[in-house]
């Protein structure tokens, strides 16, 4: 079933961009504004909102919940990390999970979220579910912010081909007054403040019918003290996790170490390469000399600084080239990855060939010239 699509299709009034995109954009703007770390989308359907939110760099935990596992499964693989995410692990950590279950049931996996979105969800709930909904979302999950969107029935007469509701599965569609009174009551009950807005402007002259989609943004009035409330919460899990993806991140030591080793060796190779080609300039190849001398190297800045400190200069001894770690550390990329010199040493210990006192990366160049 595809609501986004249906709404678009039935309208004589065309929204540009389409209404569902406007709803998603609304959520995205909210995320940009409040920078929540943990976001849950209730009624996530085919995960299109989640797919969009995974690119928001503030989010570290993203969860979806839906009553229909099949519709979630259909496109859940699009929430998996991309090959590039493995190649260039991001600084932030990100876990995406999908749960199969009902918003009428409490499950501890939904605790601790900063933002919970319920986009076009409540109108699908049976009366009994709708009754439990505030207690589960506002009372139990109790995130700092809740966004609820639902059709505004006053707008419906402007959608001519519409018979009763905008979607056959809708159990009700509320007027502005109905939604607002429900929202205000719920907010009052659970100590939230609420502001009303919406997307899908009515045509000029008919402003009083309100937005096509009405939205309530609920903000918790008091920061939760956690402990006391948490203790009375049940710990029994009732949702079934259907998908979980942990994105590679530099916060994970495994990825950080790989990234550091790779960057250290690569940087050291560049320094070695420069050192060797400098040495070759003393050879008799005129072509080479002229080519390498004025090299507009993008590393040249760092080299300028390097010469200042004597102990940071790379050198050749016998068949070995030594690149001091301090030099490697002075490269911004390495520096940013490791933070401290100690950390650098710790991360590469045993993984990169160093000299005896561990102060320099060592390369053997004996066999190199043979094949190159």
């Amino acid at each position: 079933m595809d609501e986004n699509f249906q709404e678009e299709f039935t309208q004589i009034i065309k929204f540009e961009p389409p209404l569902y995109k406007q709803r998603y954009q609304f959520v995205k703007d909210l995320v940009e504004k409040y920078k929540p770390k943990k976001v849950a989308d209730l009624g996530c359907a085919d995960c299109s909102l989640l797919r969009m939110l995974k690119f928001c760099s503030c989010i570290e935990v993203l969860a979806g919940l839906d009553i229909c596992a099949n519709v979630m499964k259909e496109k859940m693989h699009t929430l998996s990390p991309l090959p590039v995410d493995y190649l260039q692990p991001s600084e932030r950590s990100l876990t995406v999970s999908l749960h199969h279950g009902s918003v009428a049931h409490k499950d501890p996996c939904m605790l601790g979220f900063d933002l919970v979105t319920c986009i076009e969800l409540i109108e699908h709930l049976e009366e009994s579910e709708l009754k439990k909904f505030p207690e589960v979302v506002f009372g139990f999950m109790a995130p700092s912010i809740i966004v609820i969107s639902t059709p505004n029935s006053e707008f419906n007469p402007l959608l001519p081909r519409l018979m009763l509701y905008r979607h056959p599965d809708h159990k009700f569609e509320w007027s502005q007054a109905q939604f607002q009174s429900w929202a205000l009551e719920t907010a009052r009950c659970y100590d939230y403040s609420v502001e009303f807005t919406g997307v899908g402007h009515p045509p000029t002259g008919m402003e009083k019918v309100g937005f096509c989609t009405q939205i309530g943004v609920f903000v918790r009035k008091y920061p939760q003290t956690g402990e006391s409330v948490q203790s009375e919460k049940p710990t029994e899990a009732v949702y079934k996790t259907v998908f979980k993806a942990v994105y590679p991140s530099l916060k994970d030591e495994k990825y950080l170490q790989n990234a550091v080793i790779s960057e250290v060796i690569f940087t050291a190779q560049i320094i070695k390469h420069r050192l060797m080609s400098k040495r070759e300039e003393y050879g008799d190849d005129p072509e080479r000399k002229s080519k390498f001398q004025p090299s507009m190297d993008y590393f040249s800045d760092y080299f300028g600084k390097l010469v200042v400190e004597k102990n940071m200069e790379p050198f050749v001894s016998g068949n070995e080239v030594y690149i001091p770690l301090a030099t490697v550390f002075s490269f911004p990329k390495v520096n940013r990855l490791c933070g401290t010199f100690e950390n650098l040493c710790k991360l590469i210990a045993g993984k990169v060939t160093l000299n005896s006192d561990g102060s320099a990366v060592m390369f053997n160049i004996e066999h190199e010239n043979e094949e190159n």
Partner: protein
Amino acid sequence: KTTGLQVSSGLQDLCLKDRGGRRRDFHDLGVNTRQAMVHVQESKTGFSGKVIKLSTNHFRLTSRPQWALYQYHVGYSPEMEARRLRSALLFQHEEHIGRTHAFDGSILFLPKKLESKVTELFSRTQNGEDVKITVTLTNELPPTSPTCLQFYNIIFRRLLKMLNLQQIGRNYYNPSDPVSIPNHRLMVWLGFTSSILQYEENIMLCADVSHKVLRGETVLDTMHSIHSQVGEERFRDTCAKELIGLIVLTKYNNRTYRIDDIDWDNNPKGTFRKSDGSEMSFVEYYKKQYNIEISDWMQPVLISQIKRRRGNIEGSVALIPELCSLTGLTDKMRSDFNMMKDLAIHTRLPPEQRQRELGRLLNYIQKDDNVQKELRNWGLSFDYKSVSFTGRVVQGEKIFQSGTMFDYNPQFADWTKETRGVPLIRAVPVDSWLLIYTRRNYDVASTLLQSLFKVTPSMGIRMNKPHMIEVDDRTEAYLRVLQQKVTPDTNIVVCILSSSRKDKYDAIKKYLCTDCPIPSQCVLARTLSKPQTIMAVATKIALQMNCKMGGELWSVEIPLKQVMIVGIDCYHDTVSGRQSIAGFVASMNQTVTRWFSRCVVQSRGQELVDGIKACLQTALRNWSKWNKCLPSRIFVYRDGVGDGQLNTLVNYEVPQFLDCLKSIGTDYSPRLTVIVVKKRVGARFFAEIGGGLKNPPPGTVVDTVVTRPEWYDFFIVSQTVKNGCVAPTHYNVIYDTSQLKPDHLQRLTYKLCHMYYNWSGIIRVPAPCQYAHKLAFLVGQSIHREPNLMLSDRLYYL
């Protein structure tokens, strides 16, 4: 030809995506060539050789008895346009059609038969419109039908996806356990190729281990390091050379693109037109769509051509270098010995290890509940043990060289040692020749000369002192010397180059292959710098020079008389002008030691076969000049045929060959055999020796079990490998009026693998294919136009 051959395009969307390209029938299903060849109707197997026990990477697919796939057409009244809506409406009736289905919007596949042939279902859209859905049975597909096979492949790919493998290009890879090679900033992912096909007796899954080389840097990073290496002047040129043709992954979606061009006049601030018609800058777009900040606003933009599958609309996509990661290896990397050595450790898996990795995949499949459920729902399962069967190892050939006969050690498939110090069949005297070198390579040049004088007498080559010329190490200097010093009497020019820089080599080859047709030999100074190997190197160079001047080295026994053997291979030049080049070589004598070589240079869109036809005509004329008659048998070994092109070959190229023969004379009707040679095949064979798995020995022929019933095809393992798994070569005889027994054709093919003069051993393909490849490669890489015909009677391109 076959109805129901192509699964409708929508279904292919499920996962059989041919990234950025046309939809193709990769497995050449439905091309049935064997039926036209009466003499192999009964049997296409050979008989000679020793029996060997083999296992392979094929796994039997089993299905329930009386299994069939049911294909339905789904119609809507009133007509519903959108595919998503059509699915939604249909699947309101899951209780009727079941939960296992594949639907593309109009064709529905089900594992079970619905009660009646035509089922009418009623749905209601949300605007209360009633829709009648008519589901009509159109086809009951037996497990062996081409549609069914395509369908299996789709299902299998679904399974791989369920196992959380990542699709890159056509294969699936496991991202969770990469091997990183920090020295070269490479990462290797282990993955699998898979295809399910109807083989001789069974439908089988052919699975193989595949490695994807990925690079831990963006295209922008690469551009930076190119800039620091070559400087401003050659920057754009080098970027184009190194980057165009590479496949990239993007940061924001799971697609691969091929870099077709670099737009230096554009940058991320530039705008593009979105599908809704509005203009937007790249910076803005990536920020808005993916929250990605592009940091370098001065970088150029990469262009990737996309052929839309619907309607074949061509278009292009602009990509930002900073957001693209490179995959695969560049030619430059491939020529980096150290890098390839480091890579080989991880990618060249010996037989046992290869099978173990495959076992792991099958184990995942077996253990995963969801995967098993999906398979069960469709009524399919796999034999988790690979098939075993027997092959034959045909006997080694005798090598003839000037009246002497040699056996080689079959284990090494090499006769370098055996033939050392024996005169060549035809040694061309080197009376007048040039040796060109730079000042710093003077010593190297003298060493080479001395060594050549040492090794040539025993080969029977008479060699005079060369004209030694010292040049500056500049391309123009080499060319000037060539223009001044080459005379009509010059037999050959030898140049010692101090670096492997391509431009110098290209310029020399271009001049000496087109403007001034003289054989030439380029040697890297470095190759000559090691005293311990200089004699071996000089021997090789002497042999190569001899061949380039029209000499002959050795031969094997060819029992057929009046036979002309043709080899064809193609090279597709991606960089300059996208031309295609076909190399064409044809044997000119009874011993198959002399070759006529030509090539066809064709720009994009033209058919190569027209040029090939002309080559064949000239070859026949030359053959008759040499032999005073026309050949009564012609064997064409056709290499360079891509997946899915077999149909074109059978229906277009072969008739052209026949046409060409007809045009020679009304009374001329030689026996023609056309064999498609394929080096890149998924099949691997393992010899079961002493309880372990080993590479099968050279000469192993396989013509049962894993061949295709609708083809006259066989595999030969002709070469040996030091590490990793040996790859068999697949031969598909698509046209044959020779009346030769399969055994004889197999033997002839194997014999021809002994005849490549640049390698005193057995190679992977028949020598004419390798010659054709060499020629096409030289022309495509360096010369870019057809070499002078004066050279066509020599192997000048070796």
